[in-house]
């Protein structure tokens, strides 16, 4: 055990810090759930890519830096510390990208990854269906083989980023007689294909953070299949592992929220201390964000020594999503009567982003498998309790 960075790691950190200082936009970008904001964020992806900071864990030949997990964590720390923009293409970079590297053909990798890297192609996920939310195996959308094409019919929902994105990925039933997680195939579908209708779904803040996608005889070539026909579940499970696991929710984000919460508390300490719960929650925010960070480093070190990620991905998801909600609820408590104001309300005086974060935090315990599902998984798979 050696809980200190190597000189190389420290140098790497300074290199990123320096680059970000010179490149992170001074003015916050608009939300990527608006058309203008989406374009701004796409441009930022290109900037990142030019500096070779877009996909640090990708191999060098694909525009990455072949970083190991510790370097990735360092990158994320600097990224959040600098207040950098959110990653509009996170579904591509963190979910589809790694899945492609594991299951994609060379042709697919070459065709897809570079444009993903530059932000030229932004990806939406198309996991859920109206009747297959947490029960992913209940998928009904069909892809019927017609020569060298699949003909897709059905509906997907909760498709993040789909309103403005270019491509989507998801599972479709290729064997019409199959049930549950058999007979599913992982297919990539361009969102401008004929027969596709995208219906935006406004989320709590009123912006269309996700959408429904309707497929009406959408034809996609067989080359758009990822993995074998009928092997969709296996491919998707890998992707879901990335989602629940390390990649999407690096600790840095929560550490920065905790730090800002401490600041907010100190700025309002006199009134905040009149509610003892607040101080308690602020201390806990730091401790929990720290615990999350330490645990993530521990897992990363274990993985780099050949370990596998297991049910931790479920404890992980529960911990960060509930931490995020608690921190934002605490901020709301500190803000009191100002908490309800939208960021642009004059009286919000620069604290309105806490409301945005609070609203966003509501989804954390729901998406990527509700926390109730995660608790089932922990009980059954990690603790071995009876089904």
């Amino acid at each position: 055990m050696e809980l200190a960075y190597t000189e190389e790691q420290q140098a790497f950190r300074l290199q990123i810090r320096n680059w970000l200082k010179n490149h992170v936009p001074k003015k916050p970008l608009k939300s990527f759930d608006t058309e203008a904001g989406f374009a701004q964020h796409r441009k930022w992806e290109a900037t990142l890519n030019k500096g070779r900071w877009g996909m640090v864990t990708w191999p060098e030949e694909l525009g990455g830096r072949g970083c190991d997990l510790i370097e990735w964590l360092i990158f994320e720390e600097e990224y959040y510390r600098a207040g950098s923009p959110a990653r509009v293409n996170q579904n591509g970079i963190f979910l589809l990208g790694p899945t492609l590297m594991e299951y994609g053909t060379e042709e697919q990798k070459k065709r897809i990854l570079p444009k993903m890297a530059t932000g030229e192609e932004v990806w939406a996920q198309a996991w859920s269906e109206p009747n297959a939310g947490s029960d992913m195996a209940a998928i009904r959308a069909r892809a019927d083989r017609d020569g060298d094409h699949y003909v897709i019919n059905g509906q997907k929902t909760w498709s993040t980023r789909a309103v403005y994105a270019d491509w989507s990925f998801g599972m479709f039933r290729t064997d019409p007689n199959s049930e549950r997680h058999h007979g599913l195939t992982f297919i990539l579908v361009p969102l401008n294909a004929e027969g596709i209708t995208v219906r935006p779904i406004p989320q709590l803040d009123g912006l269309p953070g996700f959408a429904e996608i309707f497929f009406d005889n959408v034809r996609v070539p067989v080359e758009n299949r990822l993995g074998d026909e009928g092997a969709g579940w296996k491919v998707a499970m890998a992707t879901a592992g990335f989602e629940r696991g390390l990649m999407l929710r690096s600790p840095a984000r929560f550490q920065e929220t905790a730090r800002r919460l401490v600041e907010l508390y100190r700025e309002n300490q006199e009134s905040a201390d009149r509610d003892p719960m607040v101080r308690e929650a602020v201390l806990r925010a730091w401790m929990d964000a720290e615990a999350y960070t330490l645990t993530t480093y521990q897992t990363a070190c274990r993985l780099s020594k050949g370990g596998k990620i297991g049910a931790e991905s479920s404890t992980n998801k529960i911990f960060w999503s509930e931490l995020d909600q608690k921190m934002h609820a605490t901020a709301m408590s500190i803000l009191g009567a100002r908490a309800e104001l939208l960021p642009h309300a004059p009286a919000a005086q620069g604290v309105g982003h806490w409301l945005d974060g609070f609203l966003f935090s509501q989804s954390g315990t729901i998406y990527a498998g509700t926390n109730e599902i995660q608790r089932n998984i922990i009980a059954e798979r990690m603790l071995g309790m009876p089904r």
Partner: protein
Amino acid sequence: MDFTFTEDQLLFQESVRDFLVNEVTTESIRALWETKTGRSDELWQQLVEMGLVGMTVPEAQGGLGMNAVDFVLLAQECGYVALPENLVETVLVVAPLLAALPESDVRNEWLQKMAAGEARIAVGHSRNPLVSDAHTADAWLLQHNDEVHLVKARKKNMRRNESVDPSRRLHSIEWAPKPATCLAKGPAGKALWMQALNYGALGVAAQSLGLAQRMIDLSVKYTSERQQFGKPIGSFQAVKHHMANVAVQLEYAKAPVYRAAWSLANNHRHAGVHVSHAKIAATEAALLAARNGIQVHGAMGYTWEVDMHIFAKRAWALDGAWGDRAFHKTRVAKFVLKDNALIGASNTFVA
């Protein structure tokens, strides 16, 4: 000792509930969001005609001369439908505040107009940074230190501040206190503003009860219909327990709210503490209902598509109004932690 509402009070609640549930639907609320004022003059006139607007206006001024106990169940119903109109503040804050002023032409005239539906008054208290419904008001009751001012509403003096709840219409107001607009000051004014705060907080607490109940109802309905893994998700124990937890918290918030109403109506010496307890308990029940309600709605709970968010947002917005948790906990702490505090068995109903 009689901790029940009268038959009349319960019947009035029922008829108001029927009216509101029919008239203030989630469709009508969504429609109002798209309008400039966000308010319906027609609905307000109906509320006037039902006697609701003038409920606490003295009979001499054409009101019903009723009190907080008479209104608390109705405020709860306003919460249940997330009524956008500013009825609760009008009845619980504005009318009692005006009515508590010494008799004067100004007082009487405005009370009369309010009860008759000829005028509306919005109120600005130092604990609330913004004034709700200033834009549809004819006059504003405003606080300047201990002074109570009644000021004519002027569009150019107000500025909209958007709330997370699109039904809430909050405004910052620019004004300068003048002797002519001052209706009370000194210790009397201070007491009036404290009373206003207590009534305002009671209104929030009562609405929170209704909001919590509505969020339970919506969630129970949704989870009874929505199927997952081959059965309604409401049959899963985790979903049930999320809802049961809300039900327990709500159940134990009700009596504190009704007691606070009684204490205010009867000028109980600890009415302020009772209000603080009620507000903390009721808003927390509503916050839990919002959290657990969204959770059991699954991804739908995070959208504008289902109705959950209408009520969740009202609950979040009201939580900080009329004294935040820090303020109310401080009052509770002062009461509970002082020497010879009136706590322990036998002190609950001490006069």
